[in-house]
């Protein structure tokens, strides 16, 4: 069998003299090793295919030009070409960075959607319910101002007009409403975090 007995050096020499079948034997003999090497670096079948092809285009051109000096180092030479092409590939890709979704790094670990999940929705609902209950404990005048300000989003000017007190009084009631809320929260050790 020509494939098993002939050395790489003999095949290279024959190819350089015009024997086209020799390159076929060389490619068949080393395709797995070279392709696996490329794939182990790029982890993409299509990119590995392209680099493998470019590697042998360089090999063919160099051999046909007679620019290769056979010293029994055919396979290290081909590996070196493929290695350089892998580096070129990564250099090109660095200019256009992309995120690959592999197990080492997951883009979704740094990106999250702003919407709340079921658990957070439940907690939010409980916190809001607690706040409503505490507000009910406040004196009526403070409760009124706080409800208008927080839930109805009214300005203090509108609040003062609607309640018939001055803006300063409305501000004071709001201040005391918040102080009293904090007191109730501290007293009952209520945790209001989402």
């Amino acid at each position, binding site marked *: 069998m020509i494939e098993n007995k002939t050395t790489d050096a003999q095949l290279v020499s024959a190819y350089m003299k015009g024997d086209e079948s020799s390159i076929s034997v060389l490619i068949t003999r080393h395709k797995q090793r070279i392709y696996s090497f490329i794939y182990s670096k790029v982890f993409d079948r299509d990119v590995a295919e392209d680099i493998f092809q470019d590697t042998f*285009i360089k090999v063919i051109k160099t051999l*046909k*030009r007679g620019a290769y000096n056979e010293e029994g180092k055919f396979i290290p030479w081909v590996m070196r070409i493929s290695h350089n092409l892998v580096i070129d590939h990564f250099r090109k890709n660095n200019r256009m960075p992309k995120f690959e979704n592999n197990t080492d790094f997951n883009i979704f670990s740094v990106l999250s959607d702003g919407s709340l999940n079921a658990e957070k929705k439940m907690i939010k609902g409980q916190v809001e319910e607690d706040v409503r209950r505490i507000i009910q404990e406040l004196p009526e005048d403070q409760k009124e101002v706080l409800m208008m300000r927080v839930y109805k989003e009214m300005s203090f000017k509108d609040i003062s007009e609607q309640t018939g007190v001055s803006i300063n009084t409305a501000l004071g009631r709001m201040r005391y409403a918040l102080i009293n809320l904090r007191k109730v929260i501290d007293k009952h050790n209520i945790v209001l975090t989402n």
Partner: protein
Amino acid sequence: MQKMYFETSRSERVNKNLVPKEETIKFLLDYSKALSVIDYNKLKFEALLN
């Protein structure tokens, strides 16, 4: 958890039996047959003959 610790590293996951597609090999052999290097006054010209 167990899966996390026993998962092989990225380089170990490469299947050593990977080979390029047949069409890639065919392209290279056709390219080789079509490529001709012409020597002219110490200059080398490449020609692709189809």
